[in-house]
């Protein structure tokens, strides 16, 4: 196994493989980091995955990691590993703009908790990746920095909003990356790009220092080349944080894998599997289900009521929280300010110029749904249906251990294809959003076996059962690889 890895270009390694080679002395963090930087230099002009690369800082950090290793002071499994962070995660002293013009020039005043954890573990941060503005989008086309392209077909989108991170991982510009997921923004680009994308249970990972989109739905998670890497990153990122009161005091996630899928009860919600799916998606995800069945899983159809309403609930709750969270971008303390105007106009014109069309749409939608006379029928009703959705999942998890769906109804679509009709873009998220509404953990793994456009398979587990989730995902990942 080590022999095979020796021949792989260093930027194509997984975290676990990189650690083996670093431990054995066969390579250095400097060499791995340089390989990633070279790949970025070669491909980023075309793909636009990174909006900023920290070349000097990264090489310095890699040197320090190598020194620590030489002194026998390795900090942990992330020491010296080059990673990418999304443009909405604060890293003190670096620009952080959430893909938006309204934050051009804004420099992070402090470290987000998760970046702090990465740095304390000695990870090498390569740079910040492109995203849909304020995480609003499923294609990374709505970025103030221009779109990110799909590494396998630059006329197609990588998905979004963590499209930059997904493209960076797929094209081996980094060993792994972080993304954020509010309605599918880790899982959908992972699906379109054929990588692993994990959204932890709400409350597993601190949101302190993540530019907020919808505070009750946002979660940070790993985007990786393997399930093992995702599990490793989760174990390093998780934890209660006094700076984020929504972090949980549940037992921490500790990776321990089951030997097989034998006897695991798997539910196929009929609402997901009878939906309009692209043929390629249907074929490959159904094949993955068969693999689970052959491996001994008890697969059965289940009824997941209110799944049809999940998207509607999401596209009401989320804009309401967005309209509150984006109120702070007013031209006062940071970012873009239109000058020489009275106060009201300063607010109104700074926001008009700084926000893109989708951000404006959602701010106004939220304002509507929260406004007097409408709040009961829209926001409050959505909160009630949210209770029903959560109960539906609770009931389902009494019958099954895991729920599986295609991650997205389509493979990667063409740039511009869904930009005319906002609703068409929203429908991309139909299988991912109800997971956020319920706060459950879910992972997307690639399931296509012909090397063509990637297809994502989503596994969903009960609250805080990332162990069940990732054990099954890893087993399925192995079975799919054996098919190739």
């Amino acid at each position: 196994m080590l022999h095979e890895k020796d021949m792989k270009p260093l930027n194509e390694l997984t975290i676990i493989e990189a650690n083996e080679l670093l431990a054995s002395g066969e390579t250095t963090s400097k060499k791995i980091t340089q390989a990633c930087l070279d790949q970025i230099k070669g491909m980023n002009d075309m793909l636009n995955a990174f909006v900023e690369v920290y070349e000097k800082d990264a090489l310095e950090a890699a040197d320090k990691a190598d020194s620590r290793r030489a002194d026998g002071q390795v900090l942990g499994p992330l020491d010296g590993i080059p990673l990418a962070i999304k443009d909405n995660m604060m890293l003190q002293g670096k620009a952080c703009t959430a893909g938006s013009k309204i934050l051009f020039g804004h420099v992070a005043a402090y470290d987000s908790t998760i970046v702090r954890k990465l740095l304390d573990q000695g990870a090498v941060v390569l740079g910040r990746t492109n995203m849909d503005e304020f995480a609003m989008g499923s294609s990374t086309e709505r970025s103030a920095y221009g779109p990110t392209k799909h590494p396998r077909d630059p006329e197609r989108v990588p998905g979004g909003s963590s499209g930059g991170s997904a493209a960076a991982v797929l094209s081996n510009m980094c060993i792994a990356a972080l993304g954020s997921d509010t309605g599918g923004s880790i899982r959908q680009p992972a699906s379109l790009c054929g990588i692993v994308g994990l959204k932890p249970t709400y409350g597993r990972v601190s949101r302190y220092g993540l530019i907020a989109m919808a505070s009750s739905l946002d979660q940070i998670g790993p985007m990786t080349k393997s399930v093992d890497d995702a599990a490793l990153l989760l174990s390093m990122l998780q934890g209660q944080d006094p700076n984020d009161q929504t972090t949980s005091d549940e037992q921490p996630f500790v990776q321990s894998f089951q030997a097989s899928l034998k006897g695991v009860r798997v539910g196929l919600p009929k609402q997901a599997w009878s939906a309009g799916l692209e043929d390629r998606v249907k074929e490959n995800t159904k094949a993955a289900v068969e693999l689970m069945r052959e491996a001994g899983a008890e697969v059965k159809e289940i009824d997941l009521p209110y799944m049809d309403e999940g998207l509607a609930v999401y596209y009401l709750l989320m804009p309401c929280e967005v309209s509150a969270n984006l109120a702070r971008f007013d031209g006062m303390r940071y970012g873009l300010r239109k000058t020489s105007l009275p106060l009201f106009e300063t607010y109104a014109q700074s926001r008009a110029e700084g926000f893109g069309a989708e951000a404006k749409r959602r701010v106004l939608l939220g304002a509507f749904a929260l406004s007097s006379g409408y709040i009961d029928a829209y926001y409050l009703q959505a909160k009630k249906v949210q209770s029903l959705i959560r109960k539906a999942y609770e009931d389902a998890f009494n019958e099954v251990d895991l729920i599986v769906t295609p991650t997205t109804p389509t493979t990667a679509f063409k740039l511009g294809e869904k930009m005319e009709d906002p609703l068409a873009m929203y429908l991309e998220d139909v299988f991912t959003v109800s997971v956020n509404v319920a706060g459950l953990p879910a992972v997307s793994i690639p399931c296509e076996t012909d090397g063509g456009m990637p297809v994502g398979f989503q596994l969903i587990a009960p609250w805080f059962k990332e162990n069940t989730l990732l054990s099954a995902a890893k087993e399925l990942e192995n079975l799919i690889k054996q098919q190739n």
Partner: protein
Amino acid sequence: MKLSQEDVKHLADLARLDLSEPEAKKMAEEFGSILGYVERIQKVDTSKVEPFTMPVREDWRPDVAFESDEATRELILSNFPGRTGDLLQAPGVFENPKR
């Protein structure tokens, strides 16, 4: 639910967001389509359902003030679009009342 251009302009006022006439018109159309979709939740019987709320926490940390370190402080100040010394410069609140 259909929103008129006027409705949209009113929301834009509330949200402190300037919208041009063509933008407001387009937004009103898009809202028609989006609201048309999300309104399906109104068909769900929620007469016996409570709105979902996060569990209440009792483990509060002590309410103690602390100073920022110098680096953080300087970064916060350097982000000010208008700055005089350590003060944020902003348009006067009571000059030129709201239109």
